């Protein structure tokens, strides 16, 4: 049995339509027009123990709705979902004791309390035995470098420090499943890297299953072997990064440093042929975007090196942002 099993999960919200203007607002008081919003329209997936899954999609696609249902704080309209054999929203309290949740935008800690007191209160809330608590606390303090922060009230922490404290707080009871909702939002580069390192360690060394939602594709590339893309309440893609790329055009970029500066016209004429999408030259460097399905990278490289003096070259994947933006565009979603 998989750790998380989700079948045909559906969620319909009934929302009141807003009318324009003050008069409209008053009319809305007595005569409400309701509209159904299908946040989830039949979602299926399984997640095995020890997986690290990236769950992405544009705003409003159903990411948060799914996470809230999995965490037991939202009841779906239809479908089934079990986590370690429990139905989250029916067994809310038992389920809550077994999972950890971190919302990047919202702290789980007590604003006025020093970090350590929040931890000790959570120990009581989660009924963590003293010895286990001491072990977990010390490990988190070490991994997340919380030592100097323990006596600081939460309201005085920087965002990066607070996120580290929040991560520790979510793991003190030793959950085997962790939901991270945009954990790197607003963090500076160093804090993001530290966060990723920690999540990787947690997943690889402690075998904690992690479900991560994010808008930061670097998080995904750095961490996830598996990606689920949701759009309009359905799972569009469920697979590895390679699969995601394959689905939206197999684009690669060949970057060549020539020994002498060449002109764009010569290069374009010489390389005329199938599979080329975009060629740009700046000084001695050319960026050649091509479709790896139409022309094999090795063949293109052979063609370039046979005609020009090449100093250096390499092939790169386009940034995954582009891939995902293409995918959202394909499904008529997204803000862009």
């Amino acid at each position, binding site marked *: 049995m998989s750790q998380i099993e989700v079948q045909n999960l559906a969620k319909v*919200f*009934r929302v009141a339509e807003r009318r324009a203007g003050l008069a409209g607002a008053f009319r809305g008081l007595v005569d409400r027009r309701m509209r159904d919003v299908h946040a989830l329209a039949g979602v299926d997936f399984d997640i095995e123990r020890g997986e690290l899954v990236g769950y992405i999609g544009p705003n409003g696609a159903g990411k948060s*709705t799914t996470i*809230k249902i999995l*965490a*037991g*704080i*939202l*009841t779906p309209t239809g479908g089934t979902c079990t986590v370690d054999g429990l139905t989250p*929203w029916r067994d*809310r*309290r*038992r389920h*809550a*004791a077994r999972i950890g*949740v971190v*919302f990047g935008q*919202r702290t*789980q800690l*007590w604003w*006025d*309390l020093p970090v350590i*007191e929040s931890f000790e*209160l959570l120990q*009581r*809330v*989660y*009924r963590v035995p003293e010895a286990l608590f001491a072990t977990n606390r010390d490990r988190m303090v070490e991994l997340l470098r919380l030592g100097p922060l323990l006596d600081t009230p939460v309201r005085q922490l920087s965002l990066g420090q607070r996120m580290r404290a929040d991560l520790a707080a979510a793991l003190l009871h030793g959950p085997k499943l962790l939901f991270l909702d945009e954990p790197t939002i607003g963090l500076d580069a160093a804090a993001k890297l530290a966060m990723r390192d920690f999540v990787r360690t947690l997943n690889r060394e402690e075998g904690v299953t992690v479900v991560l939602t994010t808008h930061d594709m670097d998080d995904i590339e750095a961490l996830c072997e598996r990606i689920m893309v949701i759009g309009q309440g359905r799972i569009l893609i469920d697979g590895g990064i390679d699969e995601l790329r394959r689905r939206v055009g197999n684009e690669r970029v060949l970057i060549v440093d020539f020994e002498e500066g060449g002109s764009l016209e010569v290069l374009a004429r010489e390389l005329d042929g199938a599979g080329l999408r975009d060629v740009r030259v700046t000084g001695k460097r050319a960026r050649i975007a091509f479709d790896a399905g139409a022309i094999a990278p090795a063949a293109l490289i052979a063609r370039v090196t046979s005609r020009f003096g090449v100093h250096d070259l390499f092939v790169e994947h386009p940034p995954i942002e582009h891939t995902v933006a293409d995918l959202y565009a394909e499904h008529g979603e997204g803000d862009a």
Partner: protein
Amino acid sequence: MADTIALLGRYFGVSIRAQLQYRASFLLNATGQFVNSGIEFVGLWALFDRFGHLAGWTFAEVAFFYGVVNCTFAIADALTTGFDRFGTHYVKTGDFDRLLLRPRPTALQLAGHEFAVRRVGRLLQGLIVLAWATSALDIPWDAARVALLLVTVAGGIAFFFGLMVLQATLCFWTTESLEIMNVLTYGGVETAQYPLSIYHVAFRRVFTFVVPLACIGYFPVVAVLGVEDPLGTGRVFQALAPLAGVAFLGLSFVAWSIGVRRYTSTGS
């Protein structure tokens, strides 16, 4: 149960320490409460000074009613800040999610939101009035009387706690706390400061059967005072009446769980 009480104790300890960090604020609030309810009592005294008695009740007797309900309310009020602020602090901000993510009953966590130490002002004032009324009336404090008074206060705390739970429950539908609930809480305290027998029969029915204010004030206090009830109730009924407060609390928790179910199905 023991575990629940231990957790509440922990919450309260943390909350009290947090409040004592702001000492000036605490002292001013507590003093303000003391003076505020003190002035109310002076008004009561002025009334009796002019008219002598109220439908057969002496000033000391009414002072006893006053003291009991004020002590009761002060304690309940201190325990229910989380419910009082539920709309703006938890529903509007979506912070209620945070409570749902934890393996404890949401009502327990809300009770742990704050133990409002500043309510000690009202409590102290109530206790002083109660002490004075006791000596003025020369009440013989036997075990039965003490027990009944404690049961009365306990039932009263349950009742006012239930009112606050209902007030918070409405926030699941309205988001903001409804001022109209103050009619029942603060209005309730004012009402229960006077003996039930002075009110019109329609009010008496409402305060007995719908909002059982008289069951945690008037009826048991009549028994503690050891006087005959002008309304003709018997001692057994008077002694058991505070249980209505506990029943009221139970019903309010049923309403609460309906509200929570609504929240978890709409997500807001």
